[in-house]
C-alpha cells in the first residue's frame, strides 16, 4: 500500500490518503492513477483555471529501480488549453524524488490567496511562502528554493516550477523541473499558476521496499542488455531527438511553414548532426538512471546568450521554431527554446502559435498595428524570439497568442480558423500525418488533443522485424503495413501500441528506451513490475491495464461533452502536400473516417459517438464509470 499526498491550497490542509493495492494494480500510477482520481473527483464542466480543478502529480510503482527510462512522472488535470482531459510527462530527477519523499502521487486542490510552494520531504509536507519567487523565471525559482533549503548538492532536491507564463496563465504554460525538463503539453503550468502554486520541491531518501530483490536485479540486468539493442538508442545519444530532422525533410514529412509543406531547404542547418558538428553542442546529459544520454547541452555567448544549465533543443522544438516558421538559424532555435524553458512554456504549442501568427501576418489578418510594429515575416529569428517574449509576458499581441491557436483564430476571424493547427484545442506536434496514416489517426483520437506520443509511428511497422506475437502482433496476420496503408492491419497495430504506451504512461517510463525504438521489451518491464510488487500480472492484464486508462480518459472527455465529432484533423492536414515524397497524396476525410470506424470497433466503442460501451467498461472492470456515464445519458445505446 502506498500514499497519496492531498494538499488543499484554499484551506491549507495537508492530508495523506492511502493508495490501496487494488487501486494500484488496476490503475498503476501516472496516467492511469491520475485518470481515476480526476474522473472520480472532478465534476464535469469545471473551470480548468478555477479552484475546482485538481492537479495530480504522479510517479509509478517501479519507483526508484535504476534502469534506463525509469525516470518519468506525470502531471494531469482538466486542460485549460484543450477541451477536456490534459496530461503531460517529464523526465529529469523528479520521479525518484517523489517516491523517496514518501509518496506515490500528489493531489493539489483549491487556490491559494498568495503565492506558495510545496515542500515534500521524508513523508512530510508543508506549504511555504513563494512571494519572493513570483515573477521570477523557472531557473531563478529553482535556484532560489535550493538556496532556501540550504542544499549543497544540486541533486539534493528536485524542484518543479512555473515561470512568468504559468503565473499569467498562458494556456500552454509548462511546468519545468531540474531546470531543463518540461511537463510541457496541455497547459499544466497554467493550472499551477491559476492556483498560485509557484513550485514544488521533493527531497528525501526513504527506502522503497521491493518484493523480490534478486529477481528484480536479474530483470534490471536484462534491461541493460536489451536497451543496447534498441535501434534508436545510439542515434539518440549521438544527435539527440533532433537527429531525425533532415531525415524527415528528405522523406517529405518535416512540418514546414505551418504545415503548408513537407520539406525544408534549411533542414540540414538545424538538424541534430549540425548541432554537434557546429560546436553549438557542448555536452550530453541524461535523466536519472538512464544510459541513453539523449539530452543536449548548449552553451554560447553569441549571437545569443545560451546557458548550459537551461537545456538544448530537442526535435519538436527544432522543427517548431525551425522549419515550421521557415527559420534555419539553429542558434535562434536554441534561444527560443531556452526562453520557453525560463518563462515556462511548451515549445511545441509556442512554435505552432508563432507559425500561425506568421501566416496570419502574411495574409493581412494580423497587422503591423496589432503586432506593435513587429514584422512577423517567415523565417525571421528576431520575430520568433520577440514573439516568445511577448507571449511569455502576455504583452501586446502576446496576450492574444497566449490563448493558443484555436482561441486566437476565433478572436481574429477572417478565416484564421482554417490555418489554426490544433486537435481538441491542442496544437499539432511536429510530425506529418500525410506521410504516416496511423499518426493521423493518433492525432485525431488522442484524448489530450493532438499528440505524437500515443503510440510508435508508422515507420516501424512495415517490416516484420518489430512484430511481436506475444503482444498480438503476428506478421502473417497483418498484411499491408506501408506508410500509406490505413486498413485493419494498421489500425490493429495502433490499438495494440496505444494500449502498451498507455501502460508506459502509467508505469511512467520513457518510451524512447522501450520497444520498438528502444530495446527494452514489454515482457521485461512486466517482469520488473511483478518483482517489485509481488503481483503475478500476465501480459494480457498488463495490456488491459493500459487499455483501461485509455477508456477512463475517454469517459472523462465524454462527460465533458466530447464525441466522435472532436476526433478529427485540421482541414489542412487532409489536403495534399505540394512537395516531397508525398506530394499530391491527401489524407482524405473518408480515410480517417474508415480508420475511426475500425479503431472504435476494435476498442469496443460506439461508432456514432466514439464513446465506450457498457460491455467494454465492464470487461475492463470499470462498471462504476459506466454507471456514472449512464446517469447523464452518455452511455451509448
Amino acid at each position: 500500500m502506498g500514499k497519496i499526498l492531498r494538499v488543499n491550497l484554499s484551506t491549507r490542509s495537508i492530508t495523506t490518503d492511502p493508495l490501496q493495492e487494488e487501486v494500484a494494480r488496476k490503475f498503476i500510477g501516472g496516467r492511469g492513477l491520475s485518470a481515476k482520481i480526476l474522473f472520480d473527483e472532478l465534476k464535469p464542466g469545471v473551470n480548468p483555471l478555477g479552484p475546482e480543478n485538481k492537479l495530480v502529480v504522479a510517479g509509478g510503482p517501479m519507483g526508484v529501480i535504476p534502469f534506463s527510462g525509469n525516470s518519468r512522472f506525470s502531471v494531469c488535470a482538466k486542460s485549460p488549453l484543450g477541451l477536456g482531459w490534459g496530461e503531460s510527462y517529464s523526465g529529469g530527477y523528479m520521479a525518484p524524488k517523489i517516491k523517496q519523499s514518501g509518496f506515490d502521487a500528489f493531489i493539489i486542490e483549491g487556490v491559494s490567496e498568495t503565492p506558495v510552494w510545496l515542500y515534500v520531504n521524508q513523508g512530510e509536507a508543508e506549504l511555504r511562502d513563494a512571494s519572493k519567487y513570483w515573477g521570477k523565471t523557472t531557473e531563478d525559482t529553482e535556484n532560489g528554493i535550493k538556496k532556501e533549503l540550504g542544499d549543497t548538492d544540486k541533486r539534493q532536491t528536485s524542484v518543479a516550477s512555473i515561470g512568468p507564463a504559468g503565473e499569467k496563465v498562458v494556456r500552454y504554460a509548462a511546468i519545468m523541473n531540474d531546470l531543463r525538463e518540461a511537463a510541457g503539453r496541455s497547459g499544466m503550468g497554467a493550472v499551477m499558476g491559476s492556483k498560485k502554486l509557484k513550485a514544488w520541491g521533493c527531497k528525501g531518501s526513504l527506502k522503497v521496499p521491493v518484493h523480490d530483490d534478486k529477481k528484480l536485479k536479474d530483470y534490471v540486468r536484462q534491461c541493460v542488455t536489451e536497451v543496447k539493442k534498441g535501434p534508436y538508442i545510439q542515434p539518440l545519444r549521438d544527435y539527440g531527438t533532433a537527429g531525425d530532422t533532415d531525415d524527415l525533410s528528405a522523406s517529405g514529412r518535416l512540418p514546414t511553414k505551418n504545415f503548408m509543406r513537407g520539406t525544408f531547404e534549411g533542414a540540414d542547418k538545424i538538424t541534430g548532426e549540425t548541432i554537434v558538428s557546429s560546436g553549438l553542442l557542448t555536452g550530453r546529459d541524461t535523466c536519472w538512471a538512464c544510459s541513453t544520454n539523449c539530452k543536449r547541452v548548449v552553451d554560447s555567448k553569441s549571437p545569443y546568450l545560451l546557458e548550459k544549465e537551461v537545456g538544448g533543443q530537442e526535435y519538436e522544438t527544432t522543427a517548431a521554431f525551425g522549419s515550421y516558421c521557415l527559420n534555419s538559424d539553429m542558434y535562434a532555435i536554441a534561444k527560443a527554446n531556452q526562453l520557453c524553458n525560463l518563462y515556462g512554456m511548451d515549445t511545441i504549442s509556442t512554435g505552432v502559435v508563432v507559425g500561425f501568427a506568421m501566416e496570419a501576418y502574411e495574409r493581412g489578418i494580423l497587422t503591423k498595428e496589432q503586432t506593435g510594429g513587429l514584422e512577423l515575416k517567415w523565417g525571421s529569428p528576431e520575430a520568433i524570439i520577440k514573439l516568445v517574449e511577448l507571449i511569455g509576458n502576455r504583452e501586446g499581441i502576446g496576450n492574444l497568442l497566449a490563448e493558443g491557436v484555436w482561441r486566437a483564430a476565433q478572436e481574429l476571424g477572417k478565416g484564421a480558423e482554417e490555418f489554426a493547427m490544433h486537435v481538441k484545442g491542442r496544437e499539432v506536434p511536429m510530425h506529418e500525418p500525410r506521410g504516416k496514416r496511423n499518426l493521423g489517426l493518433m492525432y485525431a483520437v488522442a484524448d489530450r488533443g493532438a499528440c505524437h506520443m500515443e503510440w510508435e509511428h508508422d515507420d516501424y511497422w512495415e517490416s516484420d522485424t518489430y512484430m511481436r506475437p506475444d503482444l498480438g502482433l503476428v506478421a502473417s496476420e497483418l498484411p499491408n503495413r506501408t506508410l500509406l496503408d490505413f486498413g485493419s492491419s494498421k489500425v490493429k497495430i495502433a490499438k495494440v501500441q496505444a494500449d502498451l504506451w498507455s501502460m508506459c504512461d502509467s508505469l511512467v517510463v520513457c518510451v524512447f528506451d522501450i520497444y520498438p525504438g528502444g530495446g527494452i521489451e514489454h515482457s521485461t518491464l512486466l517482469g520488473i513490475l511483478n518483482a517489485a510488487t509481488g503481483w503475478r500480472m500476465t501480459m494480457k492484464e498488463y495490456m488491459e491495464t493500459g487499455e483501461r486508462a485509455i477508456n477512463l480518459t475517454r469517459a472523462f472527455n465524454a462527460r465533458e461533452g466530447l464525441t466522435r465529432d472532436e476526433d478529427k484533423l485540421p482541414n489542412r492536414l487532409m489536403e495534399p502536400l505540394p512537395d516531397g515524397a508525398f506530394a499530391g497524396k491527401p489524407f482524405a476525410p473518408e480515410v480517417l473516417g474508415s480508420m475511426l470506424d475500425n479503431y472504435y470497433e476494435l476498442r469496443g466503442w460506439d461508432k456514432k459517438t466514439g464513446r465506450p460501451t457498457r460491455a467494454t467498461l465492464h470487461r475492463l472492470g470499470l462498471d462504476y464509470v459506466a454507471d456514472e456515464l449512464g446517469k447523464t445519458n452518455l452511455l451509448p445505446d
Partner: protein
Amino acid sequence: MNVSTVKVALVYLGRAREASGTREEEFVLQTPAKIEQAVSQAIIAHPKLSELMDTIKLLINGQWATQEAALKDGDRVTLLPPVGGG
C-alpha cells in the same frame, strides 16, 4: 563516362549514415541499373548496412521507390531507416 554505366549517389540517413560512416557517396553501375545493384554495392562497402536493410525504405530523387526501380545517370538514392516519434 562509359555509355554502359551510370553514376548514382547514395544518400545515407539516420542509422544508415552511422552504419556506412558517410553521408553520401557515388557508385558506378552497369546498365541497365536498378536500386538493388546500388544497395548491393553499398553493403559490400559497408557490411553493417545489411543488418538494417529489412527496415530501410528507399527513395529515388526524393520519391518512394522499390529495389526493382531502374536508375539513370545522376540519380540520387536515399536509404531511410525508420523515423519515429519524439
